[in-house]
Structures are given as C-alpha cells and as structure tokens.
C-alpha cells in the first residue's frame, strides 16, 4: 500500500492543467544520465498483513521473556495505560512543531506543563521543551557552560554513564574542548564545567553541595546529570544543592525502553542562564482578548533565526516523549512519585541485603537508589547461571571499566517482585 489517493483519472486531469502529457515530463529537469532506469532493489510493496507478519517475526527474534535486572541508563518502569491512550491521539502525534500557536495550544500547553514539572523535580528555574536524549543533553550543557564561562575545559567524573562520556568526547573534539575524565575532580580557573551524575552510573547517591562549592570556588559551573529521574521523588533536587545546569534522561517517565530510543533529554538551568539554554522554550502570554495562551519564545537563541550564531543547531525537541513523561508524572502526582521512588529504593536494598546475607559483596559502601554493584568471582558464569533460570542478572561492568572486571551492575525497579529477587539470590547461592 502506498497511501496515495490520486486516481489515474485525477492524475490525468492534473497533468492536463499543468500542460504536460506525463509525470515523467515533470522530471525533465533532472539530467537523464542519472535518472533511474530500473526499480530500486528493495522488493515490491507488501500487503498490510504481510508487513505485520514480517515485523512480528523480527520482534519475536528478540527474547524479552526474561526477568531483567538491567538498568544502566535505560529503566523499565510500569507505564500506566493512559499514557499510550493519550499520546496515540492523532491531534498530538501527527502534528509538527507548534509554529502556528492558535491551532497548536494543545502541544504548547502540554510542553509548558512539562517545563513546569521538570523545573519542579530538578529544583531549577527554567527547563526547556526537551532535547534528543540524556547523552546529547550532557553535551549541550557543556557547550552552554563554555558560552557562559568562555572556558574550554570540561571535567567529567568517570562515574558518569560511559556512553554519555563517549558522546561528550565526540562533541568536545568537534568543539576543540579539552575533556578531562577523572575519579576525583580537579577544578582550575580553566574549567568551564564539572559534570557529575547523580545517582551515578553505579547507582550511588552523592551530596552535590560539596561539588558545587568546589566548582564555584574556581568560577566553574556545576552540571548535574540525572539519568534515573524517578530518584527525584525522594532525593533533594540538584537545584537546591547549587547546580547551575541540570541535564538528564527522562525516559523513566512514561517511555518504554525501546532498545535505547526514542528517549528525551532534560535540560534545566537557573534564571541567570535562561537565555543560554538550547532548544525550544514555550512561554505563557495573552491573546488580543486577554486570555492566556502559550507560544514558542526566546527564539532569538535558535538556528532558524540566528543561523550560525545560534546557541545550538537543535531544531526539534522530543515533544511526544515529553508528553508521555508529563502524563506519567501527572498520574503519579505529589505522593505517587514519592511512593514510586520508595518502592525502587526498598526493593533494591532488599536484594542487596539478601545477596550479602548469602556471602556476596557490594563494591561500593555509600547510599544508593535502585542500582548497586556486586563483586563476583566470575561474572560470566554467574550471568550464565542466571540466564539458565530466565534471569538477565544485570550489566557486566568490565565492558566499560577494566578495573571493575567481574563486577555486576544490578537494577531493581518496581516491576521486580520479591519472588523474582528471591530466585535471583537462590540461583547464586
């Protein structure tokens, strides 16, 4: 099916109006030497049912019937049915960026509400309409910090998600920034920003205040990366700890893990730096009759106005993912978000306690949220043993950190039951 409604008769009438005899004549501006003579070698179109079968068979090749303890930047949380029902409304998902505010109040108000929710959760003054994902949001924060401080050195703690740091490295090369990755930060008067993830890649929770002091004492900005934002249901917002920019990944709210995307990047900042924030911003205003309305604003920062002088090349946000996040956060509400975070915290600690009671050792000692690192003798044989019981035990950290060979990163969300955890422990003992 090609979804083209024109009939042959209509095509004929249109060609007649144009004054040509065939559609091919409309392509005579293309040199004939490069016009394709043969059909593309991608096969003919399939019927709807044939396509569905083909996709279903590919989907079935991915085994997902495991109990999974994988987190590491992609978190499986329960998504209430209303999320999919509401984001599936064609008025939302078949619309484009709300350039015509009078007929886009739906998306605009939803983004304004999203900005409010994210600002509140992060404790910042201003949040944008979202960026591509957490990793690119972190890179954008560095560009922003450079613009504000005029410095070119970025210091990232190694406990920031390794794939985020890889993205950061790519962006830093393009910008000729110096990227220093360290276990403990050394900030100098050349540092534009200190990047810290909280909870960090290993699930550990930090007191951000001392990092803020350290960064600010040298005139550098503190960028806090929140990859598991359900933690904000419980944890003190980075904005109350001196963060200048908060970035992160909001997939945990309302968006399936989707093999890594689409997700949505958070970026939020203080009143002082609101004109340096990249991407779309929705503001409240009034119409001619004095009633409230919403509109894209502070567009002088953006590429379609400023071209090469814009603060980023970003054009889109992840509006539909942000809508899903807003619906989920609204459903959780004031008390639900705290309960959700408490469930994650308690369950993860239950598993860690049970494992320790069975003689396992945790790699880190400090407080953690819903992820922790287990020290094993042989991570591969453990993962295999668990896989035989239909359990994906977590992420082998040796892949990213040679020092953490035989260490396993385990994530427990509210989707994991006590029975799941008991059978995890049983398999190991």
């Amino acid at each position: 099916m090609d979804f083209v409604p024109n009939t042959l008769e209509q095509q004929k009438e249109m060609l007649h109006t144009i004054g040509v005899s065939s559609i091919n004549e409309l392509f005579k501006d293309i040199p004939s030497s490069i016009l394709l003579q043969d059909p593309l070698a991608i096969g003919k179109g399939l019927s709807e049912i044939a396509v569905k079968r083909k996709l279903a068979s590919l989907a079935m090749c991915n085994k997902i019937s495991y109990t999974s303890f994988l987190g590491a930047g992609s978190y499986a949380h329960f998504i209430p049915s209303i999320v999919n029902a509401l984001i599936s409304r064609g008025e939302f998902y078949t619309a484009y960026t709300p350039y015509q505010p009078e007929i886009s109040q739906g998306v605009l108000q939803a983004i304004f509400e999203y900005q409010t929710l994210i600002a509140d959760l992060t404790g910042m003054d201003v949040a944008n309409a979202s960026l591509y994902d957490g990793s690119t949001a972190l890179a954008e924060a560095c560009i922003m910090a450079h613009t504000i401080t005029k410095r070119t050195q970025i210091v990232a703690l190694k406990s920031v998600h390794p794939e985020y740091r890889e993205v950061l490295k790519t962006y830093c090369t393009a910008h000729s920034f110096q990227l220093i990755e360290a276990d403990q930060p050394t900030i100098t008067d050349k540092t534009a920003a200190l990047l810290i993830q909280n909870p960090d890649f290993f699930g550990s929770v930090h007191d951000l205040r001392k990092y803020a002091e350290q960064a600010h004492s040298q005139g550098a900005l503190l960028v806090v990366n929140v990859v598991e934002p359900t933690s904000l249901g419980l944890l003190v917002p980075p904005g109350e700890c001196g963060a200048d920019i908060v970035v992160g990944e909001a997939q945990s709210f309302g968006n399936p893990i989707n093999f890594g995307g689409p997700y949505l990047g958070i970026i939020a900042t203080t009143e002082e730096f609101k004109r340096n924030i990249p991407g779309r911003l929705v503001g409240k205003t009034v119409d001619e009759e004095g009633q409230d309305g919403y509109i894209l604003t502070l567009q002088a920062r953006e590429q379609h106005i400023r071209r090469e002088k814009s603060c980023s090349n970003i054009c889109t946000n992840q509006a539909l993912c942000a809508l899903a996040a807003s619906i989920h956060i609204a459903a959780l509400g004031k008390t639900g978000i705290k309960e959700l975070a408490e469930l994650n915290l308690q369950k993860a600690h239950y598993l860690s306690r049970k494992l320790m009671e069975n003689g396992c050792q945790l790699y880190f000692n400090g407080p953690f949220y819903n992820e922790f690192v287990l020290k094993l003798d042989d991570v591969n044989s453990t993962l295999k043993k668990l896989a035989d019981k239909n359990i994906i035990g977590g992420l082998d950290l040796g892949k990213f950190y040679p020092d953490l060979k035989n260490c396993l990163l385990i994530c427990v969300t509210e989707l994991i039951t006590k029975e799941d955890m008991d059978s995890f422990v049983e398999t190991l003992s």
Partner: protein
Amino acid sequence: MKLLFEKSIPGRKGVSLPLMDVPVQQDLMPKTLLRKSNQLPELSEIDIVRHFTELSRRNFGVDNGFYPLGSCTMKYNPKINEETARMEGFASLHPYNPNNKGALELMYELGEDLKKIAGMDAITLQPAAGAHGELTGLMLVKAYFKDIGQDRSIILTPDSSHGTNPASSAMCGFETITIKSDLKGQVDISDLKNNLNERVAAVMLTIPNTLGIFEHSILEITKLIHDNESIIYMDGANLNALVGKVRPGDMGVDVMHINLHKTFSTPHGGGGPGAGPVAVKKFLEPYLPNPGVGKDSLIAYPKSIGRVRAFYGNFGMLVRAYTYIKSLGSDGLLRVSENAVLNANYMKERLRKHYDLPYDSICKHEFVLSDKNMPNGITTNNIAKRLLDYGFHPPTIYFPLIVHGAIMIEPTETEGKEVLDSFIEVMVKIKDEAASDPEMVRTAPHTTVVKKLDAVLAARKPCLKHCF
C-alpha cells in the same frame, strides 16, 4: 484552559502502584540527601484523561486536515507503523539485552534499503534528528580532512539553505560562507566558483532546494566541488521528491542525512522524536560513529568520530520507517515522488494565476509564492492566519529568506486532488477578501480557541513555567 496544576485537588492520585512486597527498612538514605516536598499536581485518572483529551482538541495534526508545511513533508503517518513500533519484542527490549537479534537485523536491513534508495555505500542510524544528522555528517568531514592532513575550515551553503546548515557548521567549528542564488533560484555558479578554494571543506546543498527547484546544473556543480577536492553534503530534507527516480549518490553526493520523519512517514510527534540517519560514500565510511550495525554483529569503525548518541539511536522511529519501506516497496516509493511532484506542480499552476510566483520553473515536491502584489498591503502572515479560519494548516512562511513574504507549499503525495482543490479555492478567496475586506483578513484568525498571541510580551517578560 486551566493547567494541570490548577486542577489539582489534594488527596487525589492517578496511578496504581505495585504493593510494597519487601520488608521496609528505615533510614536507607541520609536525611540531608532527601527532598522536603514537591509541587506535582494531585489528579485522578479521569481528570488526566479529560485534560489531555481537551488539549488534543486544541491541536491540529495531519489526521485533522491538510498540512502543506513546506520542507516538513507532513504526509500521512500510517497507523500500522504505530502498531509495529509498539510490538513487545521491540518496545520492551533493553539496549543491553544480548538477545537482540531481531532488532539488529531490522536495523541492518533498514540501513541496506536506505543505502539503495540514496545510492550510498555506508550508513549510520544513530543521529536522532535531521540537525543531529547534519552535525554528524560535518564531524565526518572534519575527521576526514584532519586524517589526510588538510586544513579546510570553510563550509559553503546557498542563501536558500535551512538555518540548521550554518548552525551545524558552527557547532563543528567551521566558518560558513553563503553562496548566492541566481535569478532562477538555483546556485549561482560563478559565485560558487569564486568561493571554492583550498580551504573549503564541504558544500552543503539541499536537493531539490528549499524553493522546490532541482539544480539544473547539478552535475556541473558537483564536478566543480569535486575538482576542488571538497566534499558534497546533501541536506536530505527534500528526498521525498526524488525517491525511486534519482539517487543522490549518482549526482555526486558524498554524505547526506535522511529525515525518516519526512520522507519515510514517521510521525512528527508535535516536534519530535525524529531520526536522521547519515549515509556516506566509501571513503567516509571509516569515520562513521561507533558502533555500526553489520549483518550479524556490531561494527567498530577504525577511525570513528565516536558516538553521537547513547545506545543505537531512535530505534522506535527506525521500526516505523522500516515498516513504511516494506509497505511501499520499490513500486510504492516511486509513486511517492511522482505524486508529490504532480501535486505540487498542479497547485503551483493553479495558484500562480492569483499569487506572485517569484521563481517560475517545473518544481519538485514544493514551490514558493510571495506576498508581492497582495491588495491593501495584506501580508503572508495575514494569509496564514486567515487559512486557520478555513481549517487548513498554513504553509511554511517567511522561509526561504530570499523570497519576500515567502509562502512555501508542500502538498505531499498523500493528498488527493479534491483536497488540493479546496485549499486552492480558499487561497483564491483570501486574495479576494484581501481586496474586499482587508480588515477582516488582517485581524484573522477569528475562529480559533485563542486569538493572535502577544509574542513580544512572551519574549520580553518570559514566563516559562507555572508560578505556584
């Protein structure tokens, strides 16, 4: 309409969480690390459903009606795409789940199909959007010249290019020089020649360009650029005009991005998510982002620029685009470009009798009118707002910048002649109204849920969140 926060009633909750089935332990987190409160709303499920349903009614999408927003390719988004992307085996697959054979196969197959459609040799699916693809493509250009030891720091773009082109160049540390368009709306070849030198890394071309015109001298242009040993970057935003008819690779393009949310029907989502794969010729392949997706395994490119996004990109959008390509196949994709071009030329032919057409030639998937000669000083913005009253989404306006009061119309192939006719009739009517009742046109829209909004106030006193 009230905000979520203004509808909040203390004590309400809209979600049913699993029970706490483990013993609760106190003081797991030091008190200093705990938050005191939050200001999230308290709503029941039906409150939330009604709130967002009401919001959706205040929004216009392709499902509501004709959406001829030029350069955005607002074609119909097939419903089957939404179903396949939500299949459990895709949506619930963790990026670190090793049992991912089906996902990698889909990505590989999609990459192969896109390479054939574009006439290119290699591809990355990582970029999350068109602008992200541009940035990735320019990073490849930068890495290539560094590798072969040439210092090239200039990017040339025509004055009709998208704003993202110079913005992406700047993000890569390139200097951008603008090339003039000639009287036919095409690249001014003498201006191109004057600016080509040993410092030019790449020329970014949108083909067909944003006026909807295919560069008649494309082969001469690409030869000139290649003779200068510069790279040709194609902004693939307008690929919808070309699919199945001509391949960018055959024109001489070295690197391009493909907007899956335009040509390949993935929905725009109110502003995203999209996806912007980047396809390249062989000589740029070693620099592609890691990891690449091979037939049976992931690929590590030897001189990779590194990752441009965590995990594998916007996988859910890749599933939709793949579903679309399989639905249409070679025969369907050919009908896409043919009907997109037919529809645009038909509208242009009929509207040129009523509106100024600054560049008169066969167009491809879109064309640009101007507000020159409108009666009583009626502007493009007035026309756009009046279209809202008639239930149409307006075209892209005031872009490209080289046309005064540009009205950029892209009908796409998924609209039938009768829809185009009704839009044309309304455009003609608005022209008449501009003469007979200019005040009514100037004060439009009259039927929308809000009237003209005060953009100056929004920018001067920014209110970017609800104040509790």
